[in-house]
């Protein structure tokens, strides 16, 4: 049994609009189970682009992506959707919640989609996650009536609902003030250390990166250690 959760092999990506530009060239790295990894680099160096590929949402690339021992290359759209649902939790920079639903329903949504547990079980699990993040009081609030920091914690709870192999974040603290950033970082740290959750977080925040277990530094579409 290999210990590798995610592996990128020779990933190269071009944008063709307006001219053909190579944004990622020959990215090779792997993330082990339980790793807490930060990706840093200057603005425009291709961090987000890489993360969208790693999260299987972007399929227009060259090279290989392995998640949980399975290749993601030339998989069907619905198969990739299933992988995202089951094995990846995603936290965005902007707190993307579904405004039409309550906090609890937002957290439950990927769990209901997975259909592994009954609706009641999913609800219990969602409440557990919210409790773990200290926001169980917000459960029944409409998701557009809570603060930015709270939204980000709801998004983390949602990312956790299906016990994913890996949680990915694209500057999850980028849009938060100092205090809320601190809270969110503490949540990640707790997840990594107490629950051995694998985390791959893109960040601009050097102090955030320094406190993770490992930093992948990027420059002009390449990894520079």
């Amino acid at each position, binding site marked *: 049994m290999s210990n590798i959760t995610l592996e990128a092999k020779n990933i190269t990506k071009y944008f063709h609009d307006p001219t053909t530009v190579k944004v990622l060239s020959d990215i090779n790295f792997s993330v082990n189970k339980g790793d807490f990894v930060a990706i840093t680099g200057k603005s425009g160096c291709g961090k987000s682009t890489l993360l*969208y590929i790693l999260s299987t*949402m*972007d399929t227009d690339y060259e090279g290989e992506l392995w998640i949980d021992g399975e290749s993601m290359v030339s998989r069907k*759209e*619905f198969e990739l959707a299933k992988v995202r*649902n089951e094995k990846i939790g995603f936290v*965005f920079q902007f707190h993307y919640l579904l405004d039409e639903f309550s906090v609890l329903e937002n957290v439950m*949504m990927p769990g*209901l*989609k997975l259909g592994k547990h009954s609706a009641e079980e999913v609800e219990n699990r969602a409440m557990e996650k919210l409790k773990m993040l200290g926001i169980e009081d917000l459960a029944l609030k409409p998701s557009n009536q809570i603060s930015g920091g709270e939204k980000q914690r709801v998004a983390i709870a949602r990312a956790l609902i299906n016990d994913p192999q890996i949680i990915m974040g694209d500057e999850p603290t980028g849009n938060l003030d100092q205090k809320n950033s601190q809270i969110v970082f503490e949540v990640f740290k707790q997840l990594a250390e107490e629950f051995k959750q694998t985390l791959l977080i893109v960040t601009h925040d050097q102090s955030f990166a320094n406190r993770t277990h490992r930093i992948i530094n990027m420059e002009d579409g390449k990894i520079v250690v």
Partner: protein
Amino acid sequence: MNIKLIIKIAKSLLLARFKQTLIAAVGVTFSISMFIALLSFMAGLNDLLDGLLLNRTPHVRLYNEIQPNIHQPIYSQFDTNITHNFIHSIKSAVSRQEIYNSPAIIRTLKKDQRVMGIAPKIITPVFFNDGAIDITGVVNGIDIQSEGKLFHFNEYVTAGEPADIERLSNSIILGKGLADQLLANLGDVVQVATINGDRFPLRVVGFFQSGMQDLDKTQSYASIATVQKLKEKPNNYITDIQIKLNDLAKAPEIAKDYARLFDIDAVDIQTANASFETGSFVRTLISYAVGVVLLIVAGFGIYNILNMMIYEKMNTIAILKATGFAGIDVQKIFLVIAMSIGFFGGLAGLILGFGLSAIIDQIPFETPSLPSVKTYPVSYNPSYYVIGAVFSLITTFLAGWFPSRKASQVDPVVIIRGK
């Protein structure tokens, strides 16, 4: 798969844009209700007009046509395979109009499973004398029981008692137009002359109004016995046998059967009235066309609302996809939205359409030519409701298909980046 979740999400999206969806649904409701009302009314009208004809027309009529003998003597001398015979000025033979052996034919017909009922008849041309002038007309000798049962004769008798022609000897029911020309009132006696010149006084016991004025100016009815007396014929003399079948559509086939079997002329209703179905067909076609056009307009309404909704809900679609919903799930969500607009809008439309039909059914519609009709005719045929429901679902499905496909193809990366 996860249909409950998909419906739940569809419901939330729909309720978030409740006003617009309501407007789209009202569009469907409007078109379906118009469709139902229009079709019910048109069908009612068709039934009425068809009834005018069908009620009084036998499905098959047996009679003897006056025509030249098809076996001309020369044919027995010179075989037409070898020679070509020219015969000039052939005249119709003095053939009898009487149906030979009519009691036997009637007995056979009564045993036939395909026959609903039969009514014997004598048709004879006469003159009605009114002072100095003669008015040409026709006396129909009828059996009042079977004529009433099969051809609703009694409904068209506007004054007097139809059964009186059977009970009172030498009595007659005159067409209203004819009676007006003769200045005849109930109880008056009119003079009837046969072609041979014999005169008969007949007592007027009723008036008859068919809805077709030309008919009412010439037709009159008496009992078979009276007409037999008029023509000085024995009591098995009849000229027509009118047959009503259980299945109207079989009339042409059965007419051919009887013509061969009884060696007689037989005409079926389809041949005798080839044009009447065209009118019904055109009216039905127009109703369907209007209904379908209305539905297409409603379909565009749904299409617009859905496109707008998808545009507004790009973020929602992106999040759903990022958290593991496949394109097909997203498509199902928006299809459910479209179909529920169609379902609820259509259901309301069916109910409203029924209401409209019921209202039309109450509007007074009185015409002298149709004494039995008091309000506008409406048909409550359930098949229109089924068609309306199916149409509304199909239209909304099609209207929802393209927007929902678009939604399913939203690239979450583009949306997430774009924020």
